[in-house]
């Protein structure tokens, strides 16, 4: 899963891009996880409104 770093210039994005789909998986994770959090917050708010 973790390959040795092979880019010329080390960078955060280069680090994330060392395996297949690693950048994509990372970006989807950081975007979707807060949406789940927002979902439960809104759910709670709607229930309290009732």
């Amino acid at each position, binding site marked *: 899963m973790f390959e040795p770093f092979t880019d010329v*210039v080390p*960078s955060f994005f280069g680090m994330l891009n060392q395996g297949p789909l690693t950048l994509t998986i990372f970006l989807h994770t950081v*975007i979707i996880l*807060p*949406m789940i959090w*927002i979902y439960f917050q*809104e759910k709670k*708010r709607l229930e309290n*409104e*009732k």
Partner: protein
Amino acid sequence: MANKSVWSDNRFWQRSATWVTGFASILLIWLTLDTSAQISMGNDEDLKNGVQKRVPGPTVINYKITYEMDAKRGHEVPVIGEKEKFFGRDDYSEEEAGALLHLGKLGEQAKNCMDCHTILGNGAYYAPDLTKAWIDPAWGPEGAMQALTGKNTKEEAMAEFLQHPDQYPTHARMMPDLGITAKEAKGLVAFLKHMSSIDTNGFPRNFGKMQGAVNGK
């Protein structure tokens, strides 16, 4: 309100959209800054100390450049080697080399090479890709171009070709005479040599395997 779903609630979508847009903006700004750092040009010191940069300094024209397979990265990378004479000299200062590259860049823009050629991914595919033209085997000691132009070095053969392309019709799609002077040709060859030393993550793909290629394919 009975059993209102979160999915049909406006606030959920508003907050999600705000998060995604905000996060993506920050990410893109960060990516831009990261890229700027990666493509910043190196200098003479970097070359002397063997510091690898994606875009080496202009004095890279003093060195031999080869294109070698990097097993780790899975593609070819330009390798800057020993000193090599360029038009009889290997001691171009940073200013001299920079001026030559600048002249070449202006020439490249004035003659609009990209009308037919591709340069670093930009341009046309009517004529061969020039990104790695300097390390094209056709211009090397085993290639045909030195014998064809009657010159003993790669740079002289290239400069000669650039000044009189119509005298050396190597393609069915012959390059026209663009009225390039000897001085401009020298700048253009320096520009091409520097460009071939840029680490383009293996683009154009499989370039080094093109030995004996026909019509730039």
